């Protein structure tokens, strides 16, 4: 055994130790939330890494609470509608921005980039007024409208990147055949854009599902809330006795679908995030 071999072994051990460390750091908080969610409140104070009993009471409590189920339903409706709107506006706009050269294009792109960097608070009072005028206060539809502010710029930006990479021969052939731009989009580009649309749709879904500030401000009653607000407001009688068990159970319920999506679509998500390079 030479010193050289020893240092090689030490390097490998160090490398794997780092990997394990990263894994634990990334996953442990979620794992701990799962464990906590299976504990009855009498055992919460016992810190342990593997639960001695699997208690389902917290889940029963959360899932029988009609306001929480309602919040999940609201969240699904809001996120799905937001994805649909963002993709519809995104695909048409990205055709214009990615395939056609016209004056004012860079200005439009700069505006889009600017909007995507908006602090949401900056439009809070103005948007509140708009939503009230449209009679959408305390209504998920108001959230759908307001979420376009961060999903549409991002979707347009990423889809434009993808749109640009498609070969131009396709479009020329369509033009030669006398296809209108609308036909070109729906018959030529749309079939090729599905992967990109799946990616951006997924990212828009996650963004809408997780949004908090607008959801907190533009809704008032339990029946109109979305999941993040419902979880943030799941507190017991006093500030000192938070119902940690049910909070963790609710957190696990709303996070598991996202974690599954991430694991299934990780390659897509990675390419979408890096193509966007704009928002997290």
């Amino acid at each position, binding site marked *: 055994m030479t010193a050289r071999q020893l240092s090689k072994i030490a390097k490998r051990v160090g490398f794997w130790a780092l*990997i394990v460390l*990263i*894994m634990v750091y*990334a996953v442990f*908080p*979620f794992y701990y*939330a799962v464990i906590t969610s299976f504990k009855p409140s009498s055992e919460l104070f016992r*810190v342990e890494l593997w639960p001695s009993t699997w208690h389902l009471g917290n889940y029963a409590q959360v899932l029988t609470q009609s306001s929480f189920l309602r919040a999940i339903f609201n969240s699904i409706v809001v996120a799905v509608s937001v994805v649909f709107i963002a993709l519809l506006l995104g695909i*048409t706009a990205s055709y214009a*921005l990615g395939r056609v050269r016209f004056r004012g*294009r860079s200005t439009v792109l700069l*505006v*889009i*980039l600017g*909007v995507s*960097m*908006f602090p*949401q*608070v*900056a439009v*809070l*009072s103005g*948007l509140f*007024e*708009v939503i*009230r005028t449209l009679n959408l206060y305390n209504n998920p539809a108001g959230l759908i*409208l*307001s979420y376009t*502010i961060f999903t*549409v710029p991002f979707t*347009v930006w990423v889809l*434009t*990147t993808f749109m*640009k990479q498609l070969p131009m021969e396709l*479009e*020329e052939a369509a033009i030669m055949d006398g296809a209108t*731009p609308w036909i070109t*989009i729906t018959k030529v580009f749309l079939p090729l854009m599905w992967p990109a649309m799946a990616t951006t749709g997924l990212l828009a879904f996650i963004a809408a599902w997780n949004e*908090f*500030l607008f959801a907190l401000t533009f809704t008032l009653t339990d029946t109109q809330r979305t999941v*993040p607000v419902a*979880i*943030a407001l799941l507190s017991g009688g006093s500030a000192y006795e938070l119902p*940690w068990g049910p909070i963790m159970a609710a*957190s696990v319920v*709303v*996070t598991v679908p*996202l*974690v599954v999506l*991430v694991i299934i679509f*990780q390659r897509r*998500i*990675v*390419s979408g*995030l*890096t*193509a966007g*390079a704009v*928002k*997290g």
Partner: protein
Amino acid sequence: MTTSHSSAPVGARTAPLTARRSRGTKVRRQRVKAAWLFLTPMLVALALVAGWPLFRTFFLSFTDASLSDLGTANFIGFENYLVHDNGRWFGIMADPVWWQSVWNTVYFSVVAVSLKVKFGVIVALILNAEFKGRTIVRAAVLIPWAIPTIVSAQMWAWMLNDQFGIINHMLMGVGVIDDPIAWTASATYSMWAVIMVDVWKTIPFVALLVLAALQMLPKDCYEAAEVDGIHPVRVFFKVTLPLVTPALMVAVIFRLLDALRVFDVIYVLTSNSTSTMSMSVYARQQLVEFQDVGYGSAASTLLFLIIALATVAYIYAGRKQLQLGGDA
């Protein structure tokens, strides 16, 4: 893998069209018209949810509007910002809590972003190495990113709980601290708790950006360095780091802009405590809890101006990096 620096030869597209000039221009004109038609819905939507509300926020910041009665606001000039009355200064600019929140936000942004960039680079370097199970590790690293901020704040609030939290338990077990720390309640530690949660949540994003840049690096410099027997650490600082700097700068800027508007982590973890209050939390508190739309709008406007200045500075400094969407 796609990145922001696509270099599709778009300029070549028009060449065959110019051959048949008359038809080419007609098609071109039709396409430009269609382009604007297609852009209209998006522009209308953005005007409705971004442009007009932003304008109204500016406007309301010069009034005494209240949340319950937005219609009957009076114009009061700069009174929400700063006013001298009876020998004393009033308005946001004279509010120590506002300046505290500005300082908190800047402190939070700088510390959190520099931490997540450092850790993000390390994670990216690890993920860039070839090893068994890399996909699993990459999926695991993505998990914090996918978890809603509210949920991660709650999860960490529980881990940081002063009585039953596992973090105090472990630190006491190792002997680092003797008494449990009230992480989220104490003025000294609450900012660190917030930073800890935020860093945990956004490392994946930075790591993925850097990883994408790493995977596009030319392999031959590394082979050359290996042949010359140069130490890997030296290779990292002399070759890798300069090459990924552009990607890193993009990540830093966007993370900074994102951090400056931070709201949910702080709101859930420490609610309205002044020791961690950010500008967004301050503005929302004035706007919704104190119902003072005029004053809250003024705070929002100041926040917007700060971020707009940072953005404009970045766009001018980094024009070249925006070529993705710029003139192709």
